[in-house]
């Protein structure tokens, strides 16, 4: 039975929301199984961005990696982006959207980090060779086919994030692969490109950027959409990031690695979740996006049952006189004070759509509101509607306003307000999005939120936005050059993974070891000092991670660990001493190890003299009637000797001696 056909006066939005969520078969991620993903046809791929560690930017000689605060700048430049006609004489979808928004783009420039190249007043200088070399090395590690000649291409971006209106980018290799634990994911390509501006604010018709990051060398690794569940996407992303880091030639820290995640469900559309800063957010985001699409497809099926001719579907709009709304909600009072227009919009046959489930805590009305913000520049809250979970207007008020538009019980109603100039775009935006709901899932890029949901960011750009950069000549890559680069490459991450396993390094340390690129350190200590990787791996993956985290330090010279173990070995001290020394070492990284031991009140003592103390210590033990004597005696004696023993004697050996002495 179709619940919408009833002309019921009272509509329970909350019940509709929950019902539609159940109909979509939404399950929280921690309860989801592979069958759930198979049912909705989960499919996902990645675009992993990684900044390269170079001194200068990619196409000019400004320093890379020097950042400035948003309020620190020397000048501002204003630009507007105009769409250019595509090959078929049509404007690209994104282009048209960005043009509709009529944004004024302001760039905040700091002399130390930007020159005339960044603001598009000087053509590019020849490509940064250091960056090119790193990109090729990573392409080789990714098993990509390296191109014979690098062609710099312009990729249009009209959001203003790059002052030229396009990003200079070039393919280094195509068709590669990465091994996951249980499968192989193929790579489409790897490109080198210039990084974009950082957004400071985007309010109304003004978007402000800073240009410090703009132009920094970046690579983008693109996979085929071959991940079949959220955890695979996570694993693939980690692998690519670890691979990049294994070269030691990429930047780390906040924003140095970011990924765009492409997701679709069966019958859905490729939607790109942009700029995911942490790989651990990926599972929740991809899960929710796949279900958002699945829910929207369900909504489409419901709507098309009622609306047979989608091309003829139209919204109806009327002006609203605020004086006739009694009582007037605060938000509308503010709009009236600002002399904004208020419009009532009728969405014919859309009853139940606005409160239809899309994501946890979100419904279809949010899709409209998000677009109103981005395309029509109406700041949120920017709409009221008659299916809000917490109603802002009474049913009677809606009925009264709806009369003007001859609305009936099958329709949905909404109110929008804003400057007069923005109303045309706003109404078009609503109509457009609603019509898309009759069709399926609009291709878009979406921004991730910390709660695992996403909001509309832009219309997904079409393919026709690439063209050669007439300012740059092609760069040939000779075999000899590539051979040379391949000589100094690290081994594959997957090989290292298996080696760690073979060494018996506990598995819970791998993420830390790979993300900080500490495998070479462990292998170095193994090869040069002959120390069991199980000891150093555990030390790094547990103790070091813990202590650095506790100290809140992100800058620590990892080479120090090598010196520490070399010192212990040279002085024939037990490696367990490293555990004791590390906290002090982190606080005083410049202190020499002898002094460090002094501050720890460590005394070098040979094994025999420690063992010789056993009878004497044993005599001092007093029986505690509440504890079993044998175990207690053992622990007590160990406790007495631990400080002296650590570093001087293997504690296992000592424990055995204590036991023997007791017997």
């Amino acid at each position, binding site marked *: 039975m179709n619940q919408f056909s009833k002309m019921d006066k009272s509509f329970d939005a909350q019940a509709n929301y929950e019902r539609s969520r159940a109909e979509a078969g939404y399950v929280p991620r921690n309860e989801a199984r592979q069958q759930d993903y198979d049912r909705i046809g989960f499919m996902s791929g990645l675009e992993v961005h990684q900044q390269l560690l170079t001194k200068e930017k990619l196409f000019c000689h400004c320093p890379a990696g020097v950042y400035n605060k948003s309020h620190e*700048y*020397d*000048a*501002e*430049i*204003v*630009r*507007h*982006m*105009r*769409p*250019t*006609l*595509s*090959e078929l*004489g049509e404007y690209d979808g994104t282009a048209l959207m960005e043009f509709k928004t009529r944004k004024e783009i302001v760039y905040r420039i700091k002399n130390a980090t930007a020159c*005339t190249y960044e*603001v*598009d*007043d*000087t053509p590019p200088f020849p490509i940064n060779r250091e960056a090119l070399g790193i990109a090729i090395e990573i392409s080789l590690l990714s098993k*990509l*086919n*390296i*191109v*014979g*000649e*690098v*062609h710099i*291409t*312009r*990729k*249009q*971006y*009209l959001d203003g994030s790059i*002052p*030229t*209106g*396009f990003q200079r*980018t070039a*393919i280094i290799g*195509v*068709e590669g692969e990465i091994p996951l634990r249980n499968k192989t994911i193929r790579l*489409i*390509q790897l*490109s080198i490109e210039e990084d974009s501006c950082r957004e400071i604010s985007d309010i109304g018709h003004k978007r402000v950027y800073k240009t410090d990051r703009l132009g920094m060398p970046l690579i983008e690794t*693109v996979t085929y959409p071959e991940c079949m569940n959220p955890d695979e996407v996570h694993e693939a992303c980690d692998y690519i990031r670890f691979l990049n880091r294994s070269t030691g030639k990429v930047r780390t820290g906040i924003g140095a690695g970011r990924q765009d995640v492409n997701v679709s469900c069966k019958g859905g559309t490729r939607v790109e979740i942009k700029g995911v800063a942490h790989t651990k957010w990926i599972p929740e985001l991809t899960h929710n996006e796949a279900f958002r699409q699945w829910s929207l497809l369900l909504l489409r099926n419901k709507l098309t049952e009622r609306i047979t001719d989608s091309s003829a579907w139209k919204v109806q709009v009327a002006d609203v006189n605020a004086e006739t709304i009694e009582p007037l909600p605060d938000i509308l009072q503010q709009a009236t004070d600002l002399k904004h227009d208020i419009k009532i919009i009728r969405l014919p046959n859309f009853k139940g759509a606005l409160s239809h489930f899309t994501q946890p805590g979100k419904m279809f009305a949010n899709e409209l509101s998000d677009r109103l913000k981005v395309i029509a520049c109406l700041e949120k809250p920017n709409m009221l509607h008659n299916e809000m979970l917490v109603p802002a207007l009474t049913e009677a008020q809606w009925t009264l306003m709806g009369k003007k538009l001859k609305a009936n019980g099958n329709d949905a109603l909404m109110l929008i307000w804003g400057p007069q100039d923005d109303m045309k775009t706003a109404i078009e935006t609503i109509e457009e999005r609603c019509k898309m709901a009759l069709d399926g899932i609009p291709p878009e890029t979406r921004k991730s939120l910390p709660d695992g949901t996403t909001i509309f960011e832009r219309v997904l750009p079409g*393919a*026709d*936005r*690439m*063209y*050669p950069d*007439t300012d740059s*000549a*092609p760069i*040939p*890559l*000779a*075999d000899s050059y590539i051979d040379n680069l391949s000589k100094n490459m690290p081994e594959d991450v997957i090989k290292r993974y298996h080696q760690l396993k073979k060494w018996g390094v506990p598995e819970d340390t791998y993420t830390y070891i790979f993300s900080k690129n500490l495998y070479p350190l462990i292998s170095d200590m193994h090869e040069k000092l002959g120390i069991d990787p199980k000891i150093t791996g555990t030390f790094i993956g547990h103790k070091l991670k813990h202590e650095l985290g506790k100290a809140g330090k992100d800058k620590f010279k990892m080479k120090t660990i090598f010196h520490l173990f070399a010192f212990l070995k040279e002085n024939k001290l037990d490696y367990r001493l490293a555990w004791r020394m590390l906290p002090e070492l982190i606080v005083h990284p410049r202190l020499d190890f002898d002094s460090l031991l002094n501050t720890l009140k460590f005394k070098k003592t040979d094994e025999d003299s420690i063992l010789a103390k056993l009878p004497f210590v044993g005599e001092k033990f007093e029986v505690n009637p509440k504890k079993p004597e044998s175990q207690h005696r053992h622990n007590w004696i160990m406790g007495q000797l631990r400080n002296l023993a650590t570093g001087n004697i293997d504690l296992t050996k000592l424990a055995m001696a204590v036991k023997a002495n007791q017997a």
Partner: protein
Amino acid sequence: MSDDIFQGYKGEALGLLKKFNTRVWGQASIETSRGKFVGTVLPRSENDDDQHIVLKIPTGYNIGIDVKTVISIVETGYKKANYKIPEKQFPVTPGLPKVKLFGTGGTIASRLDYRTGAVIPAFSPGELYGAVPELADICNLETEKLFAVFSENMGPKQYIALAKAIGKEIEQGVDGIVIGHGTDTLHHTGAALTFMCQNLPVPVVLVGSQRSSDRPSSDAALNLMHAMKAAGQSDIAEVMVCMFGPTSDEYGLLHKGTRVRKMHSSYRSTFRTIGDTPLAMINRKEITPIHKTYHKRRNDRNVKIMPYFSDEVTMLYYYPGMRPDTLDALIDAGYKGIIFVGTGLGHVNKELYPAIERAHAKGVHMFMTLQTIWGYVHMFVYDTGRDMMAKGIIPAGNMLPEVAWVKLSWVLGQTNDPAEVKRLMLTPVNDEITDREPYNGYLVYQGGVPEVEAFIKKVHK
């Protein structure tokens, strides 16, 4: 035609394409020692080497394949790019001024061909309307392509043709004229048209763009709107250059054709009025005069077209230690006029004196201008200057070197009489020599660093 299907390929690359029967625009699958590549074979730029084949891969990027690595190529399909610019009828709105746009070859508006990367110029009113629809709110537009040359190839022939076309258009009652022009020699043309088209009743506006119109951040559309507005709606009936004021998309400046100069190789705001203030600021809403006096728009059609130009004038940019043989060579080559570009107040070294005397004796007309660009020639201050004047070099006031060259060429196209040449050169047609230089004419940033820093922080640069 075999050339056509292998567009731009030569040598080894051409041989390889022929060997494997693969054409430009063919979809190809290429097996190489570096792996397999698929995509559409693109034309190759004529100046690039013969060692690579260009491929557009499915993701839209272009790559090059090294011919030395190729094992085999299979053409799996073929699709030739076919493109044309969309034309939309340019609407005629009663009450809007009638503006004529002359094309000279510079790209004002254009469309991209994403497959080839070629920039296809948009020029007809319909094409322009498709690219910059806002123009229809400013004027009723007509266009005419006079010639198609790059800015650096604009010369006397084109100046004369332009001047005549302007005269004809004015007679036919146009309200304003816009000339689309490459930016490199925009100011030479501005000076030439000022001298050739005198007593103008309507604005003649030269416009170009510093960033080509195929890019979203281009200055072309805004420049075009400003120029159309200046031509159709301003009451400044002079030859002007209309280009960006700041590098920001904020306003344009209208510069007098005789006082404007390109001052930066790539900046958007490259054009500057030298030794004076610009005529006016212009944005899409209004035109704000900066100059207090200018030639006003009139209803009559009494323009005076004087299309003269001699190709026997040259320039000599002086440098320390210049030997007289450079000047001798010019005299021997038969030049009738020489514009000196001297140091400081207008000086050259003594070693040149005998050559100068020889030139003077041969009847060569010589004028002095400045390397400093800003300021006046003052040849009375030092003996050197007085010596040179005695030897026949005439100071050209604060006329810009390029303008002096254009003007002497124009003058010698009319007369060879020394007194008349001098009179015409030193009688300004439109401020190429000014009586006075305003305090804010010399407005360069370096004068007060902290103040200017504060200033450009406050207003948009």
